[in-house]
């Protein structure tokens, strides 16, 4: 190896960057903002194992087999982001078709139909498609504010990374190399967006069966299978935090017991929590009482009771009363138990418009670049848009033309 050889590329890049020297940051100054910038999962128990929620400026992976609750969690996060202290819109990139619109609507609090205005949905059909979407998203994040009443995007959800790579790739060394190069490109882009705009980034991943050994990847038992997150160790290098969702069918009761586990995280110890999926969302349950006790906490940001989860160890079957929804002063959310809620009225949500820039029913990668008039939006009731819906139209249009 000739020592002078590496000089030219290094020197040229340094000169191009010489105008703008890298500036060190003081971690102390990052500390308070870092504490505030966590996105709650909407349940104190789940938040507790995450020390407050999902961190911003970091990529979190949620891995799990199908029906483990990955998409449910993503939908819940998308709806929580506008109401959370983050006060942000969510960008939901999906590769699994179709997008679960009805579930999203069902989860949305009935009193806040405008919430859905803050969920932007786009379909990605291939890794290159995703990269171009992320480039467009980058431009959108870089210049927010064409509409004054829109919240900035601070949450990016990708559901799921694995299905983008299911086709088109063999197990040959050349394809594996091409594939992992794409992982690192996608991850670098996501991390850059996360860091520059202090976004929370969530990526879901599927699982594969582990035949022999574990090749250094995370392994867990789920539904009686030994599984590991898909896409191998190359992708495992691309995420900061990995959450593993597993489910185990209880042979006695026939009820699936779900667990969320922190597989690895730079800031968290490895720990786990059981959870349930209900009609109104995903909630953690205290392990000792997972049968009788279910949290009744709709998707709302009330005042979170401090240190509440520990109080429930007192009784064995009591509902966690301290976690029951506290009616908020402004009454912006209706924390009613499901039974007390009015029946679902889809038309009532007419003003709210979840739109898809990109086809949802039939995937066709090239159509989402063709026009900028929101013509490919899939919701029929977009016409009744109120002010919020209008702003959203502009947002979709902005995303389309970028």
């Amino acid at each position: 190896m000739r020592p002078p050889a590496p000089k030219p590329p290094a020197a040229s890049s340094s000169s191009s960057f010489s105008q703008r020297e890298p500036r060190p940051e003081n971690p102390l100054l990052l500390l308070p903002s870092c504490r505030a910038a966590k996105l709650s999962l909407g349940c104190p128990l789940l938040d507790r194992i995450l020390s407050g929620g999902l961190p911003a400026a970091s990529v979190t992976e949620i891995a799990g087999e199908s029906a483990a609750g990955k998409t449910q969690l993503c939908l819940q996060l998308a709806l929580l982001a506008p109401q959370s202290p983050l006060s942000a819109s969510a960008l939901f990139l999906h590769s699994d078709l179709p997008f679960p619109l009805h579930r999203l609507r069902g989860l949305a609090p009935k009193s806040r139909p405008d919430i859905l205005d803050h969920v932007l949905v786009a379909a990605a059909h291939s890794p290159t498609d995703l990269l171009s979407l992320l480039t467009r998203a980058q431009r959108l994040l870089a210049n927010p504010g064409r509409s004054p009443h829109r919240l900035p995007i601070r949450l990016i959800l990708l559901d799921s990374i694995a299905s983008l790579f299911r086709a088109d790739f063999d197990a040959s060394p050349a394809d594996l190399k091409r594939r992992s190069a794409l992982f690192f490109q996608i991850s670098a882009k996501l991390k850059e967006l996360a860091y520059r705009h202090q976004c929370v980034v969530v990526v879901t991943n599927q699982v594969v069966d582990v035949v022999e050994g574990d090749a250094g990847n995370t392994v867990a038992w789920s539904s009686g299978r030994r599984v590991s997150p898909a896409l191998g160790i190359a992708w495992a290098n691309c995420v900061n935090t990995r959450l593993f969702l597993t489910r185990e069918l209880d042979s006695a009761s026939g009820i699936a017991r779900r667990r969320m586990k922190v597989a690895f995280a730079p800031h968290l110890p490895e720990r786990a929590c059981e959870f349930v999926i209900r009609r109104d969302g995903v909630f953690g349950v205290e392990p000792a009482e997972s049968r009788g006790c279910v949290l009744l906490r709709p998707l709302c940001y009330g005042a979170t009771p401090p240190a509440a989860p520990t109080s429930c160890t007192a009784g064995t079957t009591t509902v966690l009363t301290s976690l029951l929804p506290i009616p908020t002063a402004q009454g912006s959310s209706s924390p009613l138990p499901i039974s007390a809620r009015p029946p679902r009225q889809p038309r009532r949500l007419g003003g709210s418009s979840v739109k898809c820039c990109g086809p949802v029913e039939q995937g066709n990668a090239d159509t989402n670049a063709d026009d900028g008039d929101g013509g490919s939006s899939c919701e029929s009731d977009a016409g009744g848009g109120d002010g919020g819906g209008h702003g959203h139209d502009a947002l979709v249009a902005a995303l389309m033309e970028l």
Partner: protein
Amino acid sequence: MSYTGSAPASSSLYWKGMESSGDPHPPILAGAQNAWDMLSDEQSQKHITTGSGDLNNILGGGIHCKEVTEIGGVPGVGKTQLGIQLAINVQIPVEYGGLGGKAVYIDTEGSFMVERVYQIAEGCISDILEHFPHSHGKSSSGQKQLQPEHFLADIYYFRICSYTEQIAAINYLEKFLGEHKDVRIVIIDSVTFHFRQDFDDLALRTRVLSGLSLKLMKIAKAFNLAVVLLNQVTTKFTEGSFQLTLALGDSWSHSCTNRLILYWNGNDRYAYLDKSPSLPVASAPYAVTGKGVRDAVSSNHKRVRVT
């Protein structure tokens, strides 16, 4: 190594003298040293503790200054934890047996979580106070107070989002370290991430990387500091089977003085010294606790890997 036992208790004094009065023996050629001087230098040199005694033992006392150490391992085994731990431990004041230096942390992956750094700093401080119970009152009058905030403020943190930025940052490092002489460790977490994206030309990648490593070695020598590079693990296809190796290829493995591999052995974390010019190949268990990297002692202290 017969000389290791003879490391004098007054080594810190000798070292201090060296630093303040400049070079006592004017060399014939600028920068030249004879081997005897180098040996006594090395003996007087303090090492940066990893937090775990077993790990320090296989490393010959800790992470060495003037050397480039590569640390690799699978995701979640504790590379970043060790990196953060070293950024904190380098700051242990001289009167408590540390180096009292500052740290540069170049983060390419976004895994530097400040709340965790704060925890590790708190853990480090509580251990110092445990070991030096009598000097508690004295330290408040000293130059540096034992506060986690001070530990955090003395880490220069760079967040890097592309490989061009990474190259630029490393090129800039020389100037930065010239202005900040008290930096004693440079940590890059990880050196790999941005070089695994879209390098079609692997020969170019090798050239750029070996350029970086030469630069880092030069920095380590010139500023008498430790350089720690964290590396990822990749699967290598050889002889019809996949094996785990550190990323960036064979030529990269020559570019570090020491190479430490972290791995899981069942539910325990182990470190394996894979390459060192002066130390035998060895492995040792360690643990990542709430306070940071520590010895894997009893099973109740160990963090159990839930699978």
